[in-house]
């Protein structure tokens, strides 16, 4: 564990450093408060600090105040060490943001015991942060596939559409659906259906760029958002994704299961300033067209339906996907 000691007096610094190194700490020793605050506030800075009260440039309580103000990531446990011992000094020290207070000359065993208290508090904070991050992940990701969940992928789509309008760029929306997924569930059971969903999700993620978004939109339906995509390559990109899914069967626990997807593609710049809901409806119509065309293919949503082609937007048929 890294620990920072700040003391302008060389003898105290040496004594502290030896005591702490002997106790197994990795010690960073500085000789004024300014250096202490800067070291603590670095990204990988120490999370334990022993600060002399009286120091040049910035005193111990000043360091505590600055660190509490600047450092918002991990909690830093700070103890003041000084020969000040009046009650009002203790109160001022603790109110500046210090967690503990030790008087000089310190007893090595007491010092180590106080630091163990600090470590316990930091350990508790780590567990709380982990729990918070886990909850945050669960709130934003789909439990089965670990892709973005429906609410988050829709928020991300809305954000990207606003950005592409501002920057006069294109956001590509791909709504895709596993073909005959109901048959997989009916034939092999829901556990195998889940395996298929997980593997398909992995393949989708592997087929896009790190800054694109993939979310689970519904049961076996996925929404892909390609940011700032060149419209000339959008169909080719969608074909690549389709091919990534279809190129080999999914190895499930009961054996290989073939999988294909139908994809509805939409290029935002062709649709003006339509709402997210409207664009998704159009992408869904294109997806339905892909299903109608025999599945395992990509269909592009067009703002102007071709003559003689039945306009599926007029009706919303119940469809077997």
């Amino acid at each position, binding site marked *: 564990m890294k620990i920072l000691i700040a003391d302008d*007096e060389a*003898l*105290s610094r040496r*004594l502290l450093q030896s005591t702490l190194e*002997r106790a197994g700490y990795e010690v960073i020793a500085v000789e004024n408060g300014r250096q202490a605050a800067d070291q603590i506030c670095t990204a990988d800075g120490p999370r334990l600090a022993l600060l002399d009260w*009286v120091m040049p440039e910035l005193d111990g309580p000043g360091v505590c105040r600055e660190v509490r103000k600047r450092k918002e990531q991990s909690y830093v446990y700070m103890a003041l060490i000084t*020969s000040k011992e009046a009650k009002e000094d203790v109160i001022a020290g603790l109110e500046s943001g210090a967690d503990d207070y030790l008087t*000089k*000359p310190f007893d*090595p065993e007491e010092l180590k015991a106080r630091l163990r208290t600090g470590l316990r508090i930091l350990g508790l904070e780590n567990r709380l942060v982990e729990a918070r991050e886990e909850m945050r992940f669960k709130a934003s990701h789909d439990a089965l596939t670990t892709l973005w969940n429906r609410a988050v992928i829709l928020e991300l789509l809305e954000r990207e559409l606003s950005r592409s309008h501002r920057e006069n760029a294109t956001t590509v929306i791909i709504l895709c659906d596993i073909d005959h997924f109901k048959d997989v569930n009916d034939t092999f059971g829901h556990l195998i259906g889940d395996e298929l969903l997980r593997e398909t999700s992995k393949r989708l993620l592997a087929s896009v760029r790190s800054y694109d978004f993939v979310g689970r939109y519904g049961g076996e339906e996925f929404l892909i958002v390609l940011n700032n995509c060149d419209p000339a390559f959008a169909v080719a990109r969608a074909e690549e994704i389709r091919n990534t899914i279809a190129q080999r069967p999914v190895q499930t626990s009961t054996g290989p299961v073939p999988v294909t997807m139908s994809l509805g593609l939409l290029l935002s710049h062709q649709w003006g300033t339509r709402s997210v809901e409207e664009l998704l409806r159009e992408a869904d119509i294109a997806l339905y067209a892909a299903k109608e065309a025999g599945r395992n293919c990509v269909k592009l949503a067009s703002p102007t339906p071709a003559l003689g082609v039945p306009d599926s937007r007029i009706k919303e048929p119940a469809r077997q996907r």
Partner: protein
Amino acid sequence: MHCRLGGNEQADKECGAQNEQAAKKARKELAPLIFDHEELLARVENDRELLRDLLAIFKEDFPRQLLALREAVDAKDGNRVATAAHTLRGMLSNLAASQAAATAARLEQMGRKNETLGFQEAFGVFENDANKLLPQLDACMAEVCK
């Protein structure tokens, strides 16, 4: 300290040791030691190399800090007296030199209150304590360097 009467020999020995410790503590409280070698060894956790380093640092820093205090006293500058005395107090208390640390603390307090009239006298007492202390620290250094 209460000792039970009519106990066995071991208990009597323990009781005697406790009394001796208590008496030592009381003596220390009444008249702080110039330099407590045992306490210093405990503070460095019997690390003689560290002790040698600390004494070397003290030997190098002390004259500079003493000069700073003397100049502050001569200038009757309360803030500087408090700062220099505070540094000396920290160094001396780390070396278990309680008597000189106590007189440095007194000077620090006087500096904070800007009691300039007492500066020279208090500094004289401090110098006297320091003069008694330095040979003891030298002897300690000679011993750890053996």
